[in-house]
């Protein structure tokens, strides 16, 4: 009996310490993926213990198993379809009754269940005393006491899991007494449902009928496709109507009430009465943090700290990566003969890989900072503090962070930061508006144009209005998206405020690494691929001058104009004409999709100046000033367009992946940003002309 393999699933409420237990069980042997087609993270790991190799799947943290949220559907679909051998429900012992609500629903799935009574030290401190034998009898599940953050009880948990798997501990299915009225309706449904053999082979029948009475949309879908569809649905509607008349309340509520009743009964018997819950320290901290006057400045301070850590502390690492890739390009230039292949390796390949890894330190440091404030319990409060303001625009309290990371920072970690939002709708809206913020790479464009076409004394004002405008556009878009695209019942703000805790370094590092690695794994291939496509667009067809004495800079300018990308710039000229711009701007916008600061160096090439450093643009500024086709109004229209249009392709790649790899949302983002950009520049340019500005 060597190396027996089996699978367990970890379930539990958010804040129950589930991820800590997962880390304790699996150590570093874990990887993160996504459940197919959804944005929900799937964490898996291996635990080797005695002669067993246990595959541990971490289900999303949920309060119940309904069809209302993606997380819950994912969790229960996994249990029903993959049929893990054992389910471990991580329960916060200091908050037993609420946490056991999930257990009552897991019990109905008829898979052996182990309860890990986590954070038992906290509960004991409060004077809670549990009679485990009695609780085992009442619930029919194996019970282990653990303290996740001190790694206490991990061995016992593994032993119990194995004993349950080997059936040395007999768990039993305890049925919740739903009362005679509900029981009667269940009996009627049972007879109908059991007629479809296939259906009850695939799903536990008791779970099916309880869920039907609860009006669970996805179970009703399943039953609706079975051979007994008509009869079952008709009976269910009848039964629900009957129950509603009898109780004067919807059956969902009655069923929930019975579950809580069952728990409360079990707890009264198995728990020695404990003293009233104390929240001393947490309460005192909350008095300050949730204070209407102090709340906002504290929030601002925390956000500032996250921003600082993301962009300042990561600087050395960004520097190392830059040096490394410079070196690599140097080596490639030396050893590969000049020509197409060298250009491919240096600009296409190394440029692409460098593009991915260039953002990596930012993503890592940001996730460390976020993990810190998440694990201490502050993040839930931050959402609370900002919710009033953000919800006016259809955003969530937690939407603030991604937008802030993006301002003067970068939309790539900004979009990744939307992972802290639970609802898919809130996530999508936030992801959609985050790229509107002025990221660090857009700054050189502003510096160039403002410097070239506006008197110095107006510079700061124009810059400031650009920031204000970006905020207006982002919030306005969120509001419009909520009204037009994401209609339906408003997501109400209900959030548990967990007690404050001191995070563990190991937990923070693991969280940072797993989310950071996710970025590389998901965005990496797309970014490299697109980088090569962009390289090809600017390199082909190749231009070789017939005359002898043409300078290298002039060749580059012609090469750019007659390349596919350049031709595309000409092609879109009719579109940018109404906003006062010509084909050169078209090319610059195309190039800006590679990275926003490339807009500046592209103008350098167009004006035959060779390589222009985005930080040193004096000569380019002069050339543009001398060019009669520019004027301040056109410059403003250009700025407006570059402020709003398409995010760079790295951001788009991350957006694509983070929105569940659905092309429709990415296409929508492209459409939305481009149309907005065009309309805004059109308004500025044509409006300005009517008012008599410009040429």
């Amino acid at each position, binding site marked *: 009996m060597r190396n027996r393999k089996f699978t367990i699933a970890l379930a539990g409420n958010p804040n129950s310490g589930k991820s800590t237990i997962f880390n304790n069980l699996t150590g570093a042997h874990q990887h993160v993926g996504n459940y197919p087609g959804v944005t929900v993270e799937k964490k898996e790991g291996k635990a080797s213990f005695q002669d067993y190799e246990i595959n541990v799947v971490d289900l999303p943290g949920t*309060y*119940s198993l*309904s069809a*209302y949220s993606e997380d819950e559907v994912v969790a229960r679909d996994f249990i029903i379809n993959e049929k893990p051998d054992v389910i471990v429900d991580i329960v916060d012992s*200091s*908050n037993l*009754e*609420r946490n056991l*609500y999930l257990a009552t629903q897991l019990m109905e799935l008829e898979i052996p269940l182990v309860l890990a009574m986590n954070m038992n030290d906290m509960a004991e401190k409060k004077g809670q005393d549990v009679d485990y034998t009695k609780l085992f009898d009442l619930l029919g599940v194996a019970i282990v006491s653990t303290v996740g953050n001190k790694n206490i009880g991990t061995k016992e948990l593994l032993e119990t899991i194995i004993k349950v798997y080997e059936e040395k501990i007999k768990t039993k299915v305890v049925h919740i007494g739903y009362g005679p009225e509900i029981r009667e309706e269940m009996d009627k449904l049972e007879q109908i449902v059991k007629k479809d053999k296939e259906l009850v082979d695939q799903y536990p029948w008791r779970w099916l009928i309880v869920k039907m009475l609860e*009006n669970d949309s996805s179970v009703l879908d399943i039953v609706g496709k079975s051979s007994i569809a008509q009869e079952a649905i008709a009976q269910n509607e009848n039964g629900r109507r009957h129950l509603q008349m009898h109780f004067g*309340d*919807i059956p*969902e*509520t009655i069923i*929930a*009430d019975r579950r*809580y009743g069952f728990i409360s009964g079990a707890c009264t018997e198995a728990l020695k009465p404990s003293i009233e*819950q104390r*929240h001393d320290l*947490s*309460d005192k901290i*909350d008095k300050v943090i*949730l204070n*209407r006057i102090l709340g906002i400045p504290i929030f601002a301070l925390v956000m500032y700290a996250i921003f600082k850590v993301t962009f300042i502390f990561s600087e050395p690492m960004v520097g190392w990566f830059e040096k490394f890739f410079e070196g690599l390009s140097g080596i490639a230039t030396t050893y590969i003969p000049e020509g197409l292949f060298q250009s491919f390796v240096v600009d296409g390949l190394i440029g692409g890989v460098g593009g991915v890894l260039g953002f990596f330190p930012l993503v890592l440091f940001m996730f460390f900072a976020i993990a810190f404030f998440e694990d201490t319990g502050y993040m*839930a409060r931050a959402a*609370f503090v900002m*919710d*009033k303001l953000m*919800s006016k625009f259809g955003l969530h309290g937690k939407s603030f962070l991604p937008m802030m990371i993006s301002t003067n920072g970068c939309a790539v970690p900004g979009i990744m930061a939307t992972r802290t939002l639970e609802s898919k709708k809130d996530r999508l809206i936030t992801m959609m508006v985050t790229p509107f913020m002025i990221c660090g790479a857009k700054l050189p464009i502003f510096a160039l144009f403002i410097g070239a076409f506006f008197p110095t004394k107006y510079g700061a004002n124009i810059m400031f209005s650009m920031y204000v405008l970006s905020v207006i556009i982002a919030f306005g878009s969120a509001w419009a998206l909520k009204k037009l695209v994401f209609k339906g*019942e*408003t997501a*109400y*703000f*209900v*959030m*548990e*405020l*967990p*007690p404050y805790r001191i995070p563990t370094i190991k937990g923070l590092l693991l969280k940072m690494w797993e989310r950071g690695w996710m970025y590389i794994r998901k965005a990496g291939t797309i970014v490299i691929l697109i980088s090569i496509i962009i390289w090809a667009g600017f390199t082909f067809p190749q231009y070789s001058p017939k005359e002898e004495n043409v300078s290298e800079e002039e060749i580059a300018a012609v090469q750019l104009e007659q390349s596919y990308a350049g031709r595309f710039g000409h092609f879109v000229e009719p579109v940018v004409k109404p906003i006062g711009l010509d084909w050169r701007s078209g090319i610059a916008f195309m190039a800006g999709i590679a990275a926003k600061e490339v807009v500046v160096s592209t103008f350098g090439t167009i004006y035959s100046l060779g390589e222009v450093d985005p930080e040193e643009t004096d000569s380019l500024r002069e050339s543009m000033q001398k060019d009669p086709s520019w004027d301040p109004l056109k410059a403003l229209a250009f700025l407006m367009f570059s402020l709003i249009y398409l995010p760079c392709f790295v951001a788009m790649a991350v957006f694509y992946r983070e929105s569940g790899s659905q092309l429709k949302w990415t296409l929508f983002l492209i459409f939305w940003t481009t149309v907005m950009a065009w309309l805004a520049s059109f308004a500025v340019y044509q409006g300005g002309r009517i008012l008599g500005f410009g040429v």
Partner: protein
Amino acid sequence: MHRLTQARTNVNLIFVSLEGGRGAMHRLTDMGLIPGERLRVLHNSGYGPVTVLIKGAKVALGHGLAAKIIVKEE
């Protein structure tokens, strides 16, 4: 009987009903708030979210939702 947004801080209440959709009711049920359940108001400034204690856990409810929750004093 009154709305949760009108409740004073540090008062024990009983949840009566919710004037809202099934999705909202479900969220409350998840937190252990079912008709007849006791809750304690921890923080209500009269604007913005309300924090309450339900089954020993601290829960923040958005102002919009709290305004739809009908409670009575214990």
